[in-house]
């Protein structure tokens, strides 16, 4: 009898696919049928929409009403189809004009009283709508700011179904108080910045952090409890430069999907994620039935993932990071659909050397049996350790501590300026390759396209003695390049290679001399 359609978006990972919502009012006993591979939250849309329409002063068609979500083979999840369903039904019932729904994407969940509730993933959905050629999006009023981050689209925010109908009919839009959400979305990360000047002493650790920040290298801290491993790690994001526009869009899209509030604009600071060691594999890499949701590694995309007390994590959890560490993405397969999320994060691990934390510290007494010390170290597997560019041992500070506490230490802003300059040099060198930092450059490019550093004999010797893997060679080269960038050199020399090798192995930098030298030039 009467048929109409409206448009919405299905999210598969971060990729949005346009969904056509068709409503058909046909002959038959009054019944509403929802077809098109809907999950539980979506099947309940039928009852929500029916109540919302009734409570907004309109009538739900008393007839056989068929609602189809097309493409019918694509599994659909979530509650954000409510607005499109209601719009299609009301257009089929000739309450609102059909032509108003062309080139318009609707996103939003309905309350039973007809008010519109916020939903997750507005940003990636609106990006998909824009790239599919839609010219207008209608979203929950509280998320209009998030939708406006995408350029080239008219964004209309609606607070209730009454407003939506008035808007589409061209009637004056009534005032409605936006719904108060009990579990308000958490604010996007990047608000609070900690200063490196708060950390007293630990000059070597600060240097390691500076190098890691400059080249986006993976980092591992080890040392006894209470020497400042966590403090230093928390201050890494403050050293990183702002995200570029493209990066900010990617990072914001992931956070939108993970349910963060983006009303204040795009996320422009590198995110920081520090899951507790009781975390499950699914919470770290992402997971869930039917449609996998992003995990901590995707929330740390273009930022820092800090695993404190790394040996306390189940080994399975840490080993699940192996492939994303190399590829920068994670593909989560489910029977019906594969979700792909970005996961190019900088890994920072912190660990004690043994359960009591005192092993291998001069002058300290370790109470653990030797086997326990070995087992503790083995909880982080070889393949993960092999992917770490820089190891850094924190030593307890004794006499030096009080003296150092009185000294002025460098503030984050000073270090960040050096990092920014080193990043600029990398970007200049890597122009046109698609990579931004030394940490991302693949081995072949490093060895064949860029000039080889001098003084590689030490690296060769380490390989010949079986102390360095082929992957390790690439890691040393990358860190050497970053050291050269920080020292404003054209290419790494023997000093940089030697320091990079020492940093990779976690040796005490007797290359402290080399460090002072590079610093002197950088400062």
């Amino acid at each position, binding site marked *: 009898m009467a048929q109409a359609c409206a448009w919405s978006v299905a999210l598969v990972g971060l990729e949005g696919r346009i969904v056509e919502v068709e409503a058909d009012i046909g002959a038959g*006993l009054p019944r509403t049928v929802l077809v098109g591979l809907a999950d539980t939250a979506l099947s309940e849309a039928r009852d929500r929409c029916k109540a919302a329409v009734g409570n907004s002063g309109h009538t739900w068609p008393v007839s056989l009403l068929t609602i189809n979500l097309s493409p019918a083979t694509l599994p659909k999840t979530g509650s954000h189809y409510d607005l499109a369903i209601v719009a299609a039904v009301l257009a089929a019932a000739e309450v609102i004009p059909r032509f108003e729904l062309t080139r318009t994407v609707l996103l939003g969940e309905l309350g039973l009283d007809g008010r519109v509730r916020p939903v997750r993933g507005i940003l990636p959905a609106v990006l998909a709508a824009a790239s599919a050629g839609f010219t207008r999006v209608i979203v929950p009023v509280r998320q209009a700011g998030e939708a406006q981050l995408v350029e080239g689209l008219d964004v209309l925010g609606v607070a209730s179904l009454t407003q939506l109908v008035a808007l589409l009919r061209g009637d004056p839009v009534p005032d409605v108080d936006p719904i108060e959400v009990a579990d308000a979305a958490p604010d996007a990360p990047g608000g609070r910045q900690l200063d490196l000047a708060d950390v007293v002493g630990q000059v070597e650790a600060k240097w390691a952090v500076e190098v890691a920040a400059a080249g986006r290298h993976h980092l591992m801290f080890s040392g006894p409890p209470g020497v400042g491993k966590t403090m230093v790690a928390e201050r890494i994001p403050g050293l990183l430069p702002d995200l570029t526009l493209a990066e900010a869009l990617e990072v914001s899209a992931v956070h939108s999907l993970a349910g963060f509030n983006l009303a204040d604009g795009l996320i422009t600071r590198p995110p920081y994620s520090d899951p507790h060691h009781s975390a499950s594999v699914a919470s770290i890499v992402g997971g869930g039935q039917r449609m996998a949701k992003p995990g901590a590694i995707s929330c740390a995309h273009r930022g820092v993932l800090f695993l404190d007390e790394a040996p306390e994590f189940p080994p399975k959890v840490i080993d699940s990071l192996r492939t994303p560490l190399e590829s920068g993405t994670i593909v989560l397969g489910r029977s019906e659909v594969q979700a792909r999320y970005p996961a190019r994060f900088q890994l920072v691990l912190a660990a004690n050397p043994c359960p009591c934390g005192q092993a291998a510290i001069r002058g300290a007494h370790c109470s653990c049996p030797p086997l326990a010390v070995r087992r503790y170290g083995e909880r982080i597997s070889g393949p993960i350790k092999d992917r770490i560019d820089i190891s850094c041992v924190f030593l307890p500070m004794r006499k030096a501590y009080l003296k150092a506490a009185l000294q002025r230490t460098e503030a984050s802003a000073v270090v960040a300026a050096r990092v920014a300059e080193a990043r600029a040099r990398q970007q200049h060198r890597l122009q046109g390759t698609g990579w931004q930092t030394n940490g991302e450059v693949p081995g072949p490019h490093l060895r064949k396209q860029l000039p080889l550093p001098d003084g590689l004999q030490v690296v060769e010797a380490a390989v010949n003695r079986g102390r360095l893997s082929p992957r390790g060679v690439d890691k040393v080269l990358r860190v050497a390049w970053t050291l050269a960038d920080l020292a404003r050199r054209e290419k790494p020399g023997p000093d940089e290679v030697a320091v990079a090798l020492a940093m990779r192995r976690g040796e005490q930098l007797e290359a402290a001399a080399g460090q002072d030298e590079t610093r002197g030039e950088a400062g």
Partner: protein
Amino acid sequence: MAASARQSVGARGEDLAVAELERQGMEVLARNWRCRTGEIDIVAAETVDGRVTVVFCEVKCRTGLGFGDPLEAITWAKLRRLRSLAAEWMSAHQVSASAIRLDAVGVLLQRGQAPRLTHVRAVG
């Protein structure tokens, strides 16, 4: 509402439904036919191009929309019973028909308004 008042609402609705079916050219064969299984509200015959279809019609009458549309009260269980009643009626009567069909009529009797009839064909 007393039982007698409810019955009179039902009877009024069935009268209106019969009038509607007759207006559409159907011949009413039986009303309120009872057997052990239950009751058929209306049995009618519709002849189109010489082919006779026996129509078993369930009528639901309401005086307001407070409990929903009258047709919404015709549930799957009621239709299943109507289907078995139809089979019993056909075996009890010698009627030559080329097809049978189940219909539903919803009647809304609201105070001060003309009765509103909705006839849905082939519901089950």
